[in-house]
């Protein structure tokens, strides 16, 4: 019972803090560029504003256009339930869940591509580029996950995290190192960040994901933005739980959970720092 409560709690924290993580990355980027940066709560204000606006739909759009953001959000919400963050269990854990995770990402992307084809040519261009990136990134993502799963002899993200947790830190195998490098590159491509894509670009010709969602507005755009933020958090949490779960709470005592929360936020910052540094 307590485990379920903790699972629900860590799921909610992951889902609801996702925009904050994005703001944190933007803040670190701004600091690196000697700018002041925007408020940390701005993504929430943006989401609220978008949710209150009306949904503009092109006259050429089919029902798929309106369905796509919902499918993206739903699939991303389900993937977020599969990764452990503070406690070594997840809301949705089963044998082979990482396979479902990969293909839920693909499902959301597929529907976004279909929705984009209903809009202008620029959206189609973005969709075709996104399809290219995901076609190239899917194989390494899958290979990296399978490599770690074979190493741990577990087919379950939580079990892999537990196995890694029981290993000696200095006993890291070459498979781990290579898989981590591959998955880190794939994570950049999957979440659409520099140098694969630039989420803050303003020029349509250089856009990938932003061009694909060009025709969306209002609540649809809010759902897409939120789903993207959750995806970033999920992928980073996945990387952390597969390769560096040290610090994950071993038991349900409040103190160890709090310690994990602290170390988790500390650990994320270097990740973001590296990401921001890339730009």
């Amino acid at each position: 019972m307590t485990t379920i409560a903790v699972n629900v709690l860590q799921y909610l924290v992951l889902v609801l803090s996702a925009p904050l993580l994005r703001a944190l990355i933007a803040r670190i980027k701004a600091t690196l560029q000697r700018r002041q940066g925007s408020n940390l709560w701005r993504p929430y204000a943006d989401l609220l504003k978008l949710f209150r606006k009306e949904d503009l739909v092109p006259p050429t759009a089919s029902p798929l256009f309106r369905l796509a953001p919902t499918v993206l959000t739903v699939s991303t919400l389900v993937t977020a339930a599969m990764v452990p963050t503070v406690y070594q269990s997840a809301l949705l854990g089963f044998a082979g869940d990482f396979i479902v995770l990969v293909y839920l990402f693909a499902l959301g992307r597929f529907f976004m591509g279909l929705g984009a084809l209903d809009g202008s040519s620029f959206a189609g261009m973005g969709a075709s580029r996104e399809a290219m990136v995901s076609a190239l990134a899917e194989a390494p993502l899958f290979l990296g996950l399978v490599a770690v799963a074979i190493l741990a002899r577990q087919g379950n993200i939580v079990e892999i995290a537990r196995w890694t947790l029981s290993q000696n830190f200095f006993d890291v195998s070459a498979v781990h190192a290579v898989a981590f490098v591959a998955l880190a590159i794939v994570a950049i491509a999957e979440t659409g960040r520099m140098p694969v894509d630039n989420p803050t670009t303003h020029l349509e010709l250089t856009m990938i994901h932003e061009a694909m969602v060009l025709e969306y507005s209002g609540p649809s755009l809010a759902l897409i933005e939120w789903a993207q933020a959750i995806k970033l958090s999920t992928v980073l949490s996945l990387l952390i739980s597969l390769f560096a779960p040290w610090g994950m709470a071993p038991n349900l005592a409040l103190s160890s959970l709090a310690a994990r929360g602290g170390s988790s936020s500390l650990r994320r910052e270097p990740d973001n720092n590296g990401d921001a540094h890339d730009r």
Partner: protein
Amino acid sequence: MRFATGVLALACASVGVYPALLLRPLSLVANGLIPYGNAPQELSVLPKLLPILSLCVLGAVLIALAIPRVIRVTAIWACGLPQISPRMEYTATAFSKPLRSVFATVYKADRKIEVLPADQPYFPVTVSYRSVRTTSFERSLYRPAVDAIVAAANQIRRLHTGNVQMYLLYIFLTLVSLLVVVKALQ
């Protein structure tokens, strides 16, 4: 026409959501073929998985549908042209362009763009685009092998004159050469 594709799509979706339907009979067949084979352990997880996943999906769909939406149909930016037209739609060829660029070294494309009339490149009347793609394997491995076999077959075809006396001569020559070989081996 849609019925056939619809049935296939439905089968895909149902097998994808609940693969145990198909996996159980398949594993039974596999057990008969492979010694010491047994059903994969993942099969036992599948029935547990289905309600969890469907509950998640249902809940999330409800949440997504609960968000109030005011919808307004409005014209979109037509890239500077008066209005958007079906000719501006993204085609399958255009959609696959990035992937084709990535794999250009493997699939060496044979492209040809013809703009008519040729003396007025900025005011074309017709533009035709032709693109043929074959894999490098087909070009450098299969094609030469097939060509060599066809060339050899063309040479051998000269023997087939259609003349019965010629064929009798072949039989006679074969018989004589076989006798010579047998004699030589003894």
